[in-house]
């Protein structure tokens, strides 16, 4: 059986969907941290998260950057990526759409110029996020409201949605998801998955943000 190391900051962020995938896939895996920024340049694209996979003989199979490349790679391995070309493409598009929302949040929260942050937050909360969620909910309706994005099977799209909702409710409060009961049902579904529940409830789970240095 392969062994995986997921290298990232000790927080959820862009690695969390991969962590849920490793858990849901029953993989042999561990978190690793890196000396940052000292180790940055030694990484293939100067970025984390980074997935390192070792085969049974302990040889490195792949060293992979980019959260979505990691997610796709793991999802395919664990049968959580769709069962035909069209399902794969639909799930891809949902992941990328959730990524857009995630990036929009990161933009206003961390990257926008200080003087413009409040304005960008307004746009995010009043337009970007509600619109994005509306479309994500609509996909579920199209699939018959059975809590899955395609077919009748868990995929990494539900896992990423769970991460997004957890993230957004932590920072924006529970109100924004109330208009979308279909999304809440996906969140409930993921929470009930045995492995995921154990991971999420574990006191060892990394925090949503890393604590400030020195604390």
């Amino acid at each position, binding site marked *: 059986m392969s062994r995986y190391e997921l290298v990232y900051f000790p927080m959820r962020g862009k690695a969390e969907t991969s962590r849920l995938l490793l858990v849901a896939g029953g993989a042999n895996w561990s978190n690793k941290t890196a000396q940052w920024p000292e180790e940055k340049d030694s990484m*293939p*694209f*100067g*970025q984390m998260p980074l997935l390192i996979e070792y085969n049974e003989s302990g040889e490195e*199979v*792949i060293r*992979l*950057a*980019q*959260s*979505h*490349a*990691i997610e*796709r*790679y793991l999802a*395919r*391995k664990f049968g959580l990526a769709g069962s035909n*070309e*069209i399902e*794969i*493409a*639909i799930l*891809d*598009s949902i*992941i*990328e*759409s959730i*990524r857009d929302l995630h*990036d929009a949040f990161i*933009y206003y929260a961390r*990257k*926008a*110029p200080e*003087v*413009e942050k409040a304005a*960008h937050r307004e746009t995010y909360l009043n337009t970007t996020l509600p*619109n*994005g969620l509306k*479309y994500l909910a*609509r*996909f579920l309706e199209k699939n018959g409201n059975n809590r899955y994005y395609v077919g009748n099977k868990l995929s990494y799209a539900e896992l990423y949605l769970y991460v997004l909702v957890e993230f957004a409710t932590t920072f924006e409060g529970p109100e924004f998801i109330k208009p979308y009961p279909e999304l809440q049902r996906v969140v409930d579904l993921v929470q009930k998955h045995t492995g995921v529940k154990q991971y999420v409830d574990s006191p060892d789970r990394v925090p949503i943000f890393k604590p400030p240095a020195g604390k």
Partner: protein
Amino acid sequence: MAPHLKVTYFNMKARAEPIRLALAIGDIPFEDERLTREQFAELKETYPFGQLPILTIDHKTVIAQQHAILRYVGRFAGLYPEDPIEQAKVDQFLGFAEDINFAVGKTLHTTDPTLKKSQREELSSKTLPKLFGYLERSASQTATGYLVGSKLTVADIVLYCFDGWLRMGVLDHVSPTILDGFPTLMKIVENVRGNEKVKAWNEAH
């Protein structure tokens, strides 16, 4: 029978050109639908995420999101690897390309012109060269003339399109010739440019 494919976007290259080129290279016929802003406004809500580009398959299934479409058509065009590790490397590049888009996009949102100028200058002199530096390093380790493996993939097409877009000089205060400083990447861009089907597509459009 091969499915009917329609690519819908605005009348420009931007996020649809890699898809159009992939289909052209793969000799896959498709309907190249280009909408005006007014037409888009009317149809927007019918699209999966209210956005373009979209791919419509057999007049019924609609796939949105540029890279989801690119992977889908790439498979049929022989431009997306079958081996999981090679696929992951292409995905890695596509994700990295989105990071580059995000870095550029940040400067598009800024409203204050002085701030925008200084952001663009930082983009041009630091951020983009640094990001392309990682790509150059990775590509020069294998030096096959392609980003992944030893044949053309959708990753190379995306790089070629980005270089073409930069060279149009649409980004104020950003050098249009940034990629000239990265010889391995420039060879890859040249390989795509020299592809017969790419030449034919460019001449026709």
